């Protein structure tokens, strides 16, 4: 990889993914013109480098799972390109595709569901090595190495055990060992700690971070829990209905979110302090929750307390404020108003 460190390992260039819609609920809403397709991802561009952790945050329906599926090659973009180490995935030969699948691995949310209960730990972790045609004698060594990197030591002691003999935290470590056994360059972790006990979450997050730093991988960390972002991520992308609302380094966004949606998301998170009485969220945010609608506008406008005509009539182009990219027509105005207030 000498000299290639500048090249992002993953690049999304104007990726769109549309699905045909079955109309469904929209038909029930009088007067609504339901779109005949759902824009699950709408013009998404970003680069991800080795050693970096990108946090991906959004509600259900925001497109974060679709983004993960495109990234691991389970879905092809409707338009735009997904580049892996600088090359368009769509142009890969089947041998290259297989190598790519070994290079991009997933860790799932529920280690009780993602591990086959009838497989021993060895069988679970060895499977990707068999698919990628590693010789038998090398496989055991690699399985033990992956277990120990995942802090299950001594690794050999876990080989013949079954998932039900392990705690939730240990199972998630097995899932991580399976994901790293091929020495991938990218991990995608979808809510990797939300099913785990609070007391072991920090250990899993620290493990993921140290693997990223130690093995030079990149990580996409998908979560709905904003309070975990600061623990592990370098960059943060907030998705809203298939579009990037806000994207940039974690710290400035957490310190001072710019997009009204990010602001509302952060205000909604409960804090472990009984003296804090949370402010109720604006009614708008609740009411329009189910309505999709069509037409050129800011996707968030129906729920936004700051929306004005321009928000309802045109799509906001992403703009840069410092290090942050934010898709809001009014961000400069709102920021200026806020500075005046203080």
């Amino acid at each position, binding site marked *: 990889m000498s000299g290639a460190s500048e090249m992002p390992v993953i690049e999304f260039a104007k990726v769109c993914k549309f699905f045909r819609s079955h109309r469904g*609920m929209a038909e*029930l809403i009088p007067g609504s013109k339901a779109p005949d397709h759902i824009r699950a991802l709408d013009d998404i561009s970003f680069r991800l480098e080795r050693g970096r952790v990108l946090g991906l945050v959004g*509600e*259900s329906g925001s497109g974060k799972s679709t983004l993960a599926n495109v990234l691991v090659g389970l879905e092809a973009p409707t338009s735009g390109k997904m580049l892996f180490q600088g090359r368009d995935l769509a142009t890969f030969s089947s041998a290259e595709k297989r190598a790519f699948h070994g290079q991009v691995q997933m860790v799932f949310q529920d280690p009780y569901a993602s591990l086959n209960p009838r497989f021993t730990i060895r069988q679970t972790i060895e499977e990707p090595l068999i698919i990628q045609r590693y010789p038998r004698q090398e496989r055991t060594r690699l399985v033990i190495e992956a277990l120990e990197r995942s*802090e299950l*030591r001594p690794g050999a002691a876990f080989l013949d055990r079954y998932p039900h003999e392990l*705690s*939730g*935290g*240990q199972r998630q470590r097995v899932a991580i060992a399976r994901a790293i056994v091929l020495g991938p360059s990218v991990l995608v972790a979808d809510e990797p700690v939300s099913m785990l*006990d*609070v*007391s*072991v*979450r*920090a*250990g899993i*997050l*620290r493990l993921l971070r140290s693997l990223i730093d130690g093995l030079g991988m990149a990580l996409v960390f998908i979560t*709905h*829990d*904003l*309070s*975990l*972002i*600061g*623990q592990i991520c370098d960059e943060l992308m907030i998705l809203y209905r298939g579009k990037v609302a806000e994207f940039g380094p974690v*710290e400035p966004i*957490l310190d001072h979110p710019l997009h009204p949606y990010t602001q*509302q*998301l*952060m205000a*909604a*998170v*409960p*804090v*472990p*302090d*009984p*003296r*804090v009485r*949370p402010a*109720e*969220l604006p009614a708008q*945010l*609740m009411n329009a*929750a*189910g309505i999709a609608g069509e037409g050129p506008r800011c996707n968030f406008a129906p729920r936004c307390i700051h929306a004005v005509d321009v928000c309802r009539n045109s799509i906001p182009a992403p703009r840069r404020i410092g290090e942050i990219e934010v898709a809001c027509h009014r961000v400069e105005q709102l920021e200026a108003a806020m500075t005046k207030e203080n």
Partner: protein
Amino acid sequence: MSLLDVRDLTVSYRSGGTSVQALSQVSFSLERGEALGVVGESGCGKSTLAKAILALLPRNARIANGAVVLDGTELSKASAEELRQLRWTAMAYVTQSAMDSLNPVARILDQFAQTGRAHGEKDIRSRAEALMRDVGLDARWLKSFPHELSGGMRQRVIIALSLLFEPPLLIADEPTTGLDVIVQRQVLDLLRRVRADYGAGVIFISHDIAVIAELCSSVAVMYGGRIVEKGSIIDVLEQPQHPYTMGLKQAFPDMRDARRALINIPGSPPALDRPVESCLFAPRCPFAQDVCRTQPPPLREVAGHEVACHFAEKAPEFRSRAADPITWARPE
């Protein structure tokens, strides 16, 4: 008289040849209008506690000892018919993933009607409409099927249903787990309003101390089927006396200090299939001494709340050490 009295409740499950003591000598009382949080991790007995109170334990469970008394009626001795009459009217249960507990082939209004009929109420339409409005839903959704509603809307329907007879006791088990942040906020705001408007005694069960901090006036922390600490929510969260509570608090993220290093409690929850001759938390406790490994600590009152720790008097010192992740780090 308290609304609910739970005394020395001990519940065991039989599975295969072994017996697991899921709850051991749990005692507390709940007043009308009080909101008690029950906090703990998987296997701590918090859901068993809810099911034992509501007499919903599965067949392989047995109440080995103790009693549950609701408003003077001993539920643990009530007949099936007595319990049927008490459910929904005297006590309601919002289960974990309650949004999946609606009947998928019945319209929402019919589900209100069925529940009403079971208790001899024929016309509940106007009541159902009022309840829907109370939980922030338009009454037109009564004509819908559950699949036409989002997860958060279904959760609110369940809460509305649970209020149909304004039961004096409401138990909610992880009522917001798995919901999106903004939907969770909506449900939390609703539960806080319900608590204030209906004056019911509420037990909220959750692993999420932020949710408990927001909704509850008092809290019981459970570990290994036992209450290890209990008191007012402010006392327990601000001045925890039990090392497990200290650990949970330090393991829990806080939006307002997003970069704070979280601690990891080493080890795993205890196995409950053998007699207990120690503090169950001792193997994971950074402050454990010999006595912790040979004698179970009784629940006793120290500095204004109850705690089961041999060294509760040293809590101020432990608290400052517990804030440092190094205290909890353990070479594997």
